[in-house]
């Protein structure tokens, strides 16, 4: 065999066949190693980005943070609404008292 005639690519299918002949204990260990590696896979930190038409884009924020922000917004909104509701309720009570001429003495003390 002349060295010039030797084609290095011809070794590939032979090595592939050799790789297919691995013994079961080795395959089991490779499988275990793969499973452990997958359990430790790094989760994407910048997987997605929201973009607007043109050159505007919003920085990526993790979905959990969006959920937290939304919850906080609802809580603040709810507190403000509750405060306004109780003010309105007090006001309505005073109006009724004026109409029925049953104002408490405290009103005249201010």
């Amino acid at each position, binding site marked *: *065999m002349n*060295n010039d005639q*030797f*084609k*290095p*690519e*011809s*070794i*590939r299918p*032979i*090595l592939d*066949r*050799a*790789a*297919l*002949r*691995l013994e079961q204990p*080795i*395959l089991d*260990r*490779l499988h275990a*190693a*793969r499973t*452990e*590696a*997958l359990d*430790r*896979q*790094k*989760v*994407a*930190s*910048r*997987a*997605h*980005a*929201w*973009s*607007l*038409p043109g050159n505007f884009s919003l920085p990526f924020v993790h979905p959990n943070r969006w959920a937290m922000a939304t919850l906080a917004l609802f809580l603040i909104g709810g507190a403000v609404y509750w405060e306004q509701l109780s003010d309105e309720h007090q006001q309505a009570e005073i109006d009724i008292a004026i109409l029925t001429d049953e104002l408490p003495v405290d009103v005249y003390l201010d």
Partner: protein
Amino acid sequence: MLVCAPTVFRSFKLATRSELSGFLAETERRAYKQALFAVHDEHLALDIVQDAMLKLAEKYGDKPLDELPMLFQRILQNTIRDFYRRQKVRSIWTTLFSALLPHHDEENDSDPLEILHNDDNPNQPERPDGALEQTELIRHIEEALKNLPERQRQAFLLRYWEEMDTAETAAIMGCSEGSVKTHCSRATSALATALKAKGIEL
């Protein structure tokens, strides 16, 4: 008037768990063989592949799928190189201590009759010729690969088994493309000579 601008959800093609799993499953056997050619020990080779898989998943598990082959090869080759460094340090200590310990020749413990192959013995199990030829061919090629210098074997396997191009191989090995070509040329020549000596034509 407030106009609600349509938002466009743009996503990058990142490796999911199943994609990473598929990549590792497809690569792990070749990676094990590469490590085995380098360290000549099954357990060490498995440890090297496991280390490389863990490093890839932990550090680069969020990279796009098409970047994984090069990253994994780079990690694998570095892990093999680390093994050589550790082995070098260990061999220095072993040499120092072995001079102090009594010499024990293991070869004298084995009985040559246990491994002697007797072609004239008709009671020996018959082996199928085709499978035997294939096994012998694989054994000779693997032996020839094991005997190559580390860098030549690395370049050869990356180019012709992993099908990396010269630039990718150079990036993985941390050398110039010219060096890769030289390593591959020498490896090819050495393999051709070794296989020719065994009467193998490819």
